[in-house]
């Protein structure tokens, strides 16, 4: 049975380019569905069992979603697909953390920059599917801020040890409730993030921390998951506070 892939992209040239990338990346038989806007994408998804993907119908295994679509933002689609059992990848021209971080919060498993070279895109796509998502320094910095105790807001990004973290934390009010596990990073994960935010590669981090390349990668995967979960919890809290639920 063919592996089903959904590509949501409004630019036909870019769409066919991405199709080539997908076909090149996987040796399996690929069945690609293309969608030019969010509406078509939603229709296609509901044909294959709806957003939850629970009907036993053959769901998509891979979703490539562009952020800028004619009828909305790809993040809208992603946030409805929180439990959809597919690898969800954001394809975009925006490489800055302001655009990418919210997409990751919406549950994307990784991102591809559309202007990258064909070979690079193939490699990156394979990596994401394999569970080796990219993490740029800027996004790592955002993650550090996001997971800092008491501060999910846009506090000054602490980074390279120029602002001493200890002093910074002591000046904050200590939260009375103990943060839940999904709201915290393990010390190892924080360390990995800190290195990433300083521009180190996974290989360099592995040697700096004295651990295996795969272990570093596992930490990154775990961070991705925690971001997704914590963002959803945050949204739920926000929604219940505003009486939406």
């Amino acid at each position: 049975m063919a592996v089903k892939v959904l590509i949501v992209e409004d630019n036909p040239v870019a769409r066919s380019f991405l199709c080539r990338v997908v076909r090149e990346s996987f040796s399996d038989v690929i069945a690609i569905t293309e969608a030019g806007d969010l509406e078509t994408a939603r229709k296609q998804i509901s044909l294959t069992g709806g957003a939850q993907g629970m009907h036993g119908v053959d769901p998509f295994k891979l979703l490539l979603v562009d952020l800028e679509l004619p009828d909305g933002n790809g993040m809208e689609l992603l946030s409805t697909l929180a439990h959809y059992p597919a690898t969800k990848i954001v394809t975009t021209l925006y490489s800055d953390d302001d655009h990418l971080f919210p997409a990751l919060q919406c549950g994307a498993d990784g991102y591809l920059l559309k202007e990258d070279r064909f070979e690079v895109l193939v490699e990156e796509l394979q990596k994401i599917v394999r569970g080796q998502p990219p993490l740029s320094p800027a996004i790592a910095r955002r993650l550090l801020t996001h997971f800092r105790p008491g501060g999910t807001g846009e506090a000054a990004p602490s980074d390279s040890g120029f602002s001493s973290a200890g002093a910074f934390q002591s000046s904050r009010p200590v939260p009375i409730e103990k943060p839940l596990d999904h709201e915290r990073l393990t010390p190892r994960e924080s360390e990995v993030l800190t290195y990433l935010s300083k521009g180190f590669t996974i290989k360099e981090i592995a040697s700096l921390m004295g651990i295996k390349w795969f272990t570093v990668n596992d930490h990154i995967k775990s961070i991705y998951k925690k971001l997704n979960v914590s963002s959803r919890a945050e949204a739920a809290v926000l929604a219940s506070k505003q009486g939406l639920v």
Partner: protein
Amino acid sequence: MNPAPQANAADASGAGIRAAPVAKRRAQTLRRARLRQRELAVLAVLGFLGLFMLARLLALQPYLDSTWRAEAGDVVELVTSPLSPLKGLGGAHLERITGRDGASLLADANLLQRSPRWSIDDATRQSQLDSQRRLSTLLEQGAVTLHFVGGQQVVVEPRPRGMAGVGALFWLLGAAALALGLVAATVLISHPHWRNLPYALIGLCQGANLLAIGIESLPGLGLPQAYAQHGLIARTAFDLCSAAAMVHLSTLQPLRLPSGRWLAAFTWGICAVLVALAARQALPQAWWWTQAGMLGCGVVTLLLMTWSYRLEPNPFALLMRRLAAAATATLLLLCTAVAVASWQGGVAEGDAALSSVIWYLFLSTLILLLPMFSRVQPLMRELAMLAGTSTVATSLDLLFMSAFSVGAFASLSLSVFLALAVYAATRRWLLQPMSGQHVPGAERMFERLYRVLREVEARPRDSAELLTRLLRDLFEPLEVRTLDRPSARSRVLGDGSALLVPLPTIDADQEHGSDGSIVLRFAERGTRMFSRDDARLTDRVVEQLRRAVAYDKAVERGRSEERARIAQDLHDDIGARLLTLMYKAQSPEMEDYIRHTLKDLKTLTRGLASSDQRLSHATAEWKADIGQRLAAAQIELSWTFIFDRDIVLSVVQWSALTRVLRELISNAIQHSCATHLEISAALEDGRLRLSLADDGIGRNPQAWSHGLGLGGVRKRVKLLGGDVQWRENGRSGIVCTVLIPDLGPRH
């Protein structure tokens, strides 16, 4: 009366007040003010009741409802009377009055002269006192017989005068007395301090004086017995008491004078002795002594104020000195006029009494205004000036008529003319410490304000300092201090010696608040008092500054929004087109070229949209990006970046450095065929040294044609004020060195 500025400043910087939360403090102040208002209302009601009781008492006194006139030659003539036995006797001259027991009182001018206070001669005083006393005794006994010249005898029954018989003048003077008493009470209640006691005393004494004059003004024949007995000594006591209190006050306000206590005690002692002697009638030439005492106190007050101003140039001292000078000078003029009139004769005693009444009114308005000179409306001040002018006019009138025997009309017009001249001459001099707008002319002020506003727009952070400078320019105060205590608006403190100005908040989120306040003391180097107009003016200035800051912020916000919009459009439209073009590119070179352009576009738009960046952040991204690109091109990267300080790169610096690096890396990837690229950079004291060394095939860089790429590098490095060089790297490859001597935050 005036809360001493020292006390105020101490309050303001007091730790206790600062510690209390603003809202609580405000509530407290409000509650206290409300309590004060209630106390005052109660006092006003009590005062009015007292006045009413006095009127009631007077209404019960028996009197003869009739109007008399003193004619030349000590003759008393009946003008008119509603009493039936006296009807038709208008123009008849009274000879004497006899009572029921046969006691007789000879009718002369003394009968009509009710105020011996302003009679000079001891004998005249005594006879006036006697005749008034005897008249009231006669009236109290019952029916009296009036003997007119020509043998006519009329028996008249004195009746209580009733409330209607009290007369309008009494109520008018009573109201003025009440106002004086209430102002004294207000000062004491709002600033309960023993230093304000002398002022309250002055107010009460003058109020009592006005009441006494009111009693003397009762129409008809006959005064209350008690007043006829003790009126003179009471009025002497009130006069001397307020004079001594004035001296006492000037030793305490605005500055506590050294050894002022002894001086005050000495003055009080002298005045007490004078009053005691006068009461026992053991003081010969009592009028002269009393007047000398009052004038002496006035002169001492003048001297004390001069001294006080020397010690501390408080404009309030200046004002007090001038007011004291005005009061003393008019008193001197009045005394001279009365004395001359009495010597020369030929002037009715009533005129002297009248001019003294006007002087008392003048003094009363001065006392009323003293605690609120900087705050009252100009109308009130003009009223005081008018009262002073009238005093001068009547005194002069008296003087001319008696001393120079000028005709009544000529004397009146001459004296009015002179008084107006005096008014015109002294008005400016007297009011100058309060309101004389010595603020630099409108043009200069506008210019200063404009300049400061521009500076505030340029440097909103310094607005507090700039405001202070502007206020210094405007008011030339002797002292400027900043307080931590916030204030809602500008206000004049106490007696006008200080002005409290709120510092505008720099934070635009808080629209109307202030972090602290500025206190200006002693405007115009201590020659002028702050007025409400000044407070209003500073409020406007502060408002303008606030607006300037807000405007600046709005402009900045608008600018960045506009930039973000342009960036978005560029990125979305041009970016998408370039992307399509790139996918359709005919050759890999073309594709790379477009990719490069696309990346430059992204750098450009990001520079447009984002603000300044830290060097450490930028380095991390450069490293990640370069690492990825070189890995794709299978070139090994070794990267070192050392900096002694994490500076903040401006958008221009960031985008220039990013594009320089990208261009150099592209160059290396495309042309060098290198396997290893070593990038090392160091920032020391703002001096950036960046070098890229490859082990490729490039040689002889001088012979390179500097196309678009390398030309761009040169241009951008030059833009940063630096220099770029290429040379051969040992056996193989090229080293490119970028040197930027000053990567400070200035570019």
